[in-house]
């Protein structure tokens, strides 16, 4: 009954011979899909990897390790937000809810049923993805600010509900018991931050590899097409609701992973800390500051902002007198005014030109 697919082309792209010398076409087709890494990039990559491995052993006190762990964690969150907003152009102001879902899922399952947080993390990922799909269906038809504010109020609703939900600890949240045996299975390392360091780094690498793969596959092409011109994408056979949902779900999954890591790192989850609007905004600012729609941008953003807030906190004590936020706020305004493509623009002036395809804009305008 269903009409046949137009699989057999009526007009195959014709032989290039029509257009004169097809050597130009063959040469173009033989070009590599992605320009090879330059020598400088390779050197930098190897040095960077070595430095990351050596870091926790060189700086073997808690504070510098903590700072790096936070960079990895926030880098991962900014990367996750980047999938949805940077690549697919859907600006979410409520991403903290997926972080919270991840943190609560594993913490709750561990405290109640002694299920390993690793399994709990998978459950959290599934719940977060399901939540993303459910939220996306009615809201994806909203445009611009209406969508952004819809995600904002959904985030607020989720926070309010969790704050009142006795079953999962309401405003007190969940306190994870300290357990000294089976550290790896229980995802708890009380003697050293080094395991956390490498797990966070591993998570971040997984997220970045996923984005790199997405970026180069059909998924990434469709995401960017939707960001640039949704109508044109539809006219070319892209089911935009489906692909927006996929972007949202993928994004939510990494947020939830970060949430579980956080819960295991601080061993307490409460709604004020894992569901707040400020977290959603912070993640967004990091991605934008570094450069959205690029692989490295969110990492650059996290690497700049986290040390800033962690050191002011140490220098000024307590919440750091909010000095870090004063600098954040001013910095983000300055970047919006003078470097709207993000700090990655500066990095690119220094490193050899990257492939053109990774260059991208900041969501729909």
């Amino acid at each position, binding site marked *: 009954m269903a009409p046949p697919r137009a699989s057999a082309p009526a007009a195959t*792209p014709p032989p290039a011979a029509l257009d004169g010398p097809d050597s130009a076409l063959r040469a173009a087709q033989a070009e590599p899909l992605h320009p090879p890494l330059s020598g400088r990039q390779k050197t930098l990559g190897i040095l960077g990897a070595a430095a990351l491995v050596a870091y926790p052993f060189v700086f073997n006190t808690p504070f510098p390790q903590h700072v790096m762990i936070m960079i990895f964690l926030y880098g991962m969150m900014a990367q996750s937000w980047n999938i949805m907003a940077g690549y697919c152009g859907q600006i979410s102001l409520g991403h903290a809810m997926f972080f919270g879902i991840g943190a609560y899922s594993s913490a709750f399952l561990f405290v109640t049923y002694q299920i390993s947080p690793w399994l709990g993390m998978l459950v959290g990922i599934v719940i977060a993805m399901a939540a993303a799909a459910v939220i996306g269906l009615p809201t994806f038809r909203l445009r611009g600010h209406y969508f952004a504010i819809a995600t904002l109020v959904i985030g607020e609703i989720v926070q309010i509900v969790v704050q009142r939900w006795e079953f999962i600890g309401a405003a007190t949240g969940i306190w994870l018991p300290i357990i000294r045996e089976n550290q790896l299975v229980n995802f708890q390392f009380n003697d050293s931050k080094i395991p956390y360091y490498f797990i966070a780094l591993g998570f971040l690498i997984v997220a970045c590899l996923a984005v790199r793969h997405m970026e180069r596959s059909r998924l990434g092409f469709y995401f960017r097409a939707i960001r640039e011109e949704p*109508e044109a994408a539809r006219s*070319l056979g*892209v089911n935009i609701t489906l692909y927006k949902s996929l972007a949202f779900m993928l994004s939510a999954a990494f947020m939830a992973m970060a949430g579980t890591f956080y819960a295991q790192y601080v061993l307490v989850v409460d709604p004020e800390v894992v569901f707040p609007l400020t977290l959603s905004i912070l993640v967004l600012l990091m991605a934008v500051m570094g450069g959205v729609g690029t692989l490295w941008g969110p990492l650059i953003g996290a690497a700049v902002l986290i040390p800033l807030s962690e050191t002011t906190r140490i220098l000024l004590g307590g919440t750091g007198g909010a000095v870090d936020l004063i600098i954040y706020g001013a910095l983000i305004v300055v970047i919006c005014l003078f470097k709207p493509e993000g700090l990655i623009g500066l990095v690119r002036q220094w490193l050899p030109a990257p492939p053109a395809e990774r260059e991208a804009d900041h969501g729909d305008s």
Partner: protein
Amino acid sequence: MAILEVEGLTKKFGGLIANNDISFRVEAGEILGLIGPNGAGKSTLFELLTGFYPPDRGAIRFQGHPIVGLRPDRINRLGIARTFQKLKPFQNMTVVENVMVAAMQHTANPRKARTQALETLSFVGLLEMRNAHAKALSTGQRKRLEMARAMATRPRLLLLDEVTGGVDQRSIPGLIELVGRLRREGMTLILIEHNMQVLMSLADRVLALHLGRKIADGTPTEIQNHRGVIESYLGAAYA
């Protein structure tokens, strides 16, 4: 066999009837021109045929299957592709990436998609520009890009909105030649075109719309001498 059959298609926007009871058929391999003054309902007809607007009444059959109510992406996958009057390139993607998005309908492999996209770009004469960002192209080049993108989905029916509109005079012959080549490839085409000379040289048959109604349907020469068509363009005084 008719590839497209349209029956009694009607679309209203508030009190305005943009398309009023329009019926026609397009045979496979045919080039149908669509003319009419501004506001005649040509672009609305494209929106209805490609599923961007739902019609209020009427039926559209493509290769014998009803397509009213299907989403635009679904209709494209069945074999109808289009360009937009107001061009919609993916601005921050390169020319070849723009076309790869379309080619990816038939392959998930980026390398294959790129190979096909480059063939299409070579066909429309944009091979040299493959790595430029779409936003860097001239209007004429953007039109070619949009045609390449539509072609890369491998449609059976291609809807082109104002191929020569808003393009500098020098680019027009090249664009006409391009459409002519599409026809030689056996593509079925519907063209919205204001330039009568262009239509004369390309179209097998012309459909004239005025104020949302079909007022004439015939060969280009018939249409050129059709009293109603001349009146609709020039006003009754000149007829």
